[in-house]
């Protein structure tokens, strides 16, 4: 029986977004999943069929940790493991991959050189070349990692179709990046809309202990009619508690967060609000029936690490009164095209699928990068189609010059000259 090792050393949201890959491998054999130690319980809840282990990727390793690591590596050998899927461009995970034959490692391989380093597969190079200009970035991260495996499972089978469960709404208090989070007053306005729309449901405030302050601030902006329905769970849920809290909700209102991906994992409809570095075409909620309000001024998406020199134009757009009116109108019209007027710089997207995976369709607003993104997607699908990964291709009708321009940006000369399957 095949045994696979998946190494995912990144955070909460990334672990959830590795689902298509892990589901694919579980269908083919047994899966060992190696994650950051803080996420082992979460990983077990997400992937009950996988054998989960935790390493101290983000905390200081102790002598005992190293002993555990060695015990783990003793069990996983080049002889027992069929393939290792290394999901991270990380020297730590690359170091662990040195325990195996180079050819066994998929995704990011340790380079066989004196100075170490990491080599990327053709797939990772291709997708990253297309994300150099993030505005035309073509692929959801779930499908990116899903593409590490040949013939990944159908995208539509990854998460349940979004469907309200009748338990109320969840409000995710903040994202890991402050700039991607919504200010309390704006969030309160959004909560009021959905509270009204769903006829006064229970409202659950979700977040860790660090978000308790943000929750207290939100409560100041909510009227007493809503406050009586609020259960503030910030800082009170472990991973099991969070699963329980999100399961069966009617909607989760959230910026780009790990909890958002958890909601999509559980089939809870996501009402996402993306700004700053968050970009729905990369990390939007995976599945059918989620919506994303994307603040998309000319400068979006930006880099998390770089300070904003534009006076947070994306946030300003969301804070205009017109924005809340658009949200209310869109929800009341059930997102009918043409009946959701939005300000310039605001886009409303709805999730669905094509042959490659999850894709967002524009409901309202203008997408200046539609052509380039679609051509990139077509290009990826061609590669997928040719390698037998999908049974039909994605085609897009656009101006010839747009296609030529996009090809020139996305395809590297060397990929024509040297074997595309090489790692480099």
């Amino acid at each position, binding site marked *: 029986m095949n045994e696979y090792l998946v190494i995912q050393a*990144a955070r909460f949201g990334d672990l959830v977004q590795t689902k298509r890959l892990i589901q694919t491998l579980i269908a083919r054999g047994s899966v060992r999943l190696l994650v950051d130690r803080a996420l082992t319980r979460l990983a077990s809840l997400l992937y009950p069929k996988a054998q989960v282990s935790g390493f101290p990727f983000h905390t*200081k*390793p102790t002598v005992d940790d190293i002993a555990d690591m060695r015990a783990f*590596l003793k069990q996983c050998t080049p002889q027992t493991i069929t393939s290792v899927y290394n999901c991270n461009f990380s020297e730590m995970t690359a*170091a662990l991959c040195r325990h195996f034959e180079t050819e066994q490692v998929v995704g990011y391989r340790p380079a066989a050189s*004196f*100075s*170490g380093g990491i080599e990327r597969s053709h797939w990772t190079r291709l997708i990253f070349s297309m994300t150099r200009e993030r505005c035309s970035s073509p692929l959801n991260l779930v499908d990116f990692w899903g593409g590490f495996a040949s013939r990944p499972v159908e995208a539509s089978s990854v998460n349940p179709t979004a469907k309200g469960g009748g338990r109320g709404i969840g409000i995710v208090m903040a994202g890991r990046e402050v700039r991607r989070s919504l200010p309390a007053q704006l969030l309160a306005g959004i909560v009021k809309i959905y509270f009204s729309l769903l006829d006064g449901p229970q409202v659950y405030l979700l977040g860790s202990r660090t978000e308790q302050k943000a929750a207290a601030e939100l409560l100041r902006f909510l009227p007493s009619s809503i406050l009586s329905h609020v259960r503030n769970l910030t800082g009170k849920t472990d991973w099991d508690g969070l699963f329980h809290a999100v399961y069966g909700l009617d909607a989760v209102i959230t910026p780009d967060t790990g909890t958002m991906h958890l909601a999509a994992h559980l089939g809870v409809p996501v009402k996402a609000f993306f700004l700053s570095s968050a970009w729905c075409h990369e990390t939007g909620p995976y599945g059918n029936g989620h919506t994303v309000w994307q603040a998309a001024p000319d400068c979006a998406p930006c880099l998390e690490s770089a300070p904003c020199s534009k006076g947070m134009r994306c946030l300003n757009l969301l804070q205009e009164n017109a924005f809340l009116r658009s949200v209310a109108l869109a929800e009341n019209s059930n997102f009918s095209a043409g009946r959701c007027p939005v300000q310039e710089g605001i886009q409303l997207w709805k999730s669905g699928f094509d042959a490659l995976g999850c894709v967002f369709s524009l409901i309202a607003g203008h997408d200046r990068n539609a052509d380039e993104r679609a051509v990139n997607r077509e290009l990826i699908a061609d590669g997928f189609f040719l390698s037998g990964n999908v049974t039909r291709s994605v085609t897009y009708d656009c101006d010839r010059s747009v296609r030529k321009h996009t090809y020139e940006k996305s395809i590297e000369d060397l990929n024509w000259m040297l074997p595309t399957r090489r790692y480099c």
Partner: protein
Amino acid sequence: MNDRSLRILVILPMYGGSLPIGRYCCAALREIGHTVRCFESPVMYSAFTGLKELQLPPESLAKIENSFIHIVSQAILAHVESFEPHLVLAMAQAPVDRNILLRLKNSGIRTAMWFVEDYSIFNYWKIYAQLYDVFAVIQKEPFFTELRKIGQENFVYLPLAADPSFHKSIQLTNDEKKEFGADIAFLGAGYPNRRLAFRHFAGRNFKIWGSDWEGETLLSKNIQRNGERISPEDSIKIYNATKITINLHSSVHTEQLVSHGDFVNPRTFELAAMKAFQLVDERSLMGELFGSDELVTFDDMEDCCRKIDYFLSHPMEREQYREKALARVLKEHTYVHRMRTLVASIESSVGWGLPIGVETHQEQNPYQAELANVMESFLLETGLGPHSSLETAVSSLKARKGPLSEAETAVLFLDAWKRQYLHTDNRTSR
């Protein structure tokens, strides 16, 4: 890494006689305790020679070959930047161009070349020698004077040597003795002086091994394997199986079959290390390397023939010479000796431009002590010794081919963790 241990980048040539010498140097430097990275130029050789097959106009070919060498130089620079060596040691014919040497000149990284060539034949040293901090040579005067004339004062006489871990006496099977054995043998290329000299042995139990003997009619029956190149492994078998190995230094001149040159070739040391009995032609620098009771020399071919006859009938005397020659090599003429001499010479003439030993900022880090404890047991397990630093262990492990053990993998993981969280602002990314 002990407190005098250096990081040394050795640049091998793409091909040629100095290539194996470069590899012996790497092994010796590691044995001494330095951290060594070897730039494997030979992997580029087929691509370089392949350019000639493209039937380019000569003027274009030259430009493209220059561009190729420039790319190789860039790869060397990339190693320099990542490894930050104390010393870049180039072997003769290494693809180190002038731009690299000029860039390194003021960087604090020391450069040295071991020019294991005859300076009177290969004259490119006139351009390159002064660009190196130290220039090691296998000849003395008048080469020393010539070097001073071009402004290179930091030169060191560094005769060739042997690597006893490779050049050693071995037990042969009966079949091997039959295949490789002979009363007299020579292994090497068919230079003009050798072709004429060896005609003296026509009709004897004499085997010629090696290439470049095409067109040699008188000795055609003596040439083994149709003049194929002989692998280093087979050469050891040949030397071990032969009663008397002739070691005649090459020459393109035929007026004097024994050229009476100065430097001593590597074969002299290697044969001695393998405990093979050799008759070697006289060289002006031989006397300070081997005594007359350690090696038997000849000054012309008649002398050589006389000594062949004598020593074929006196096996006990051959054995005494073999023992003494081996002892001398092990005592003074290994590549470890040469590399110690070279490093000491650089240290005394130009010193080191980069700090040596563990950098102090690491020691001040609060996590360092705990990590060091974790590391200690792994370093011992990986066979690097208790004084090796994490840097030495990691460099060694990264260079290793194939899967690592769980202990070795853990060492690499700790190094990556430390660099991510203690030294840089990196984050684990997608």
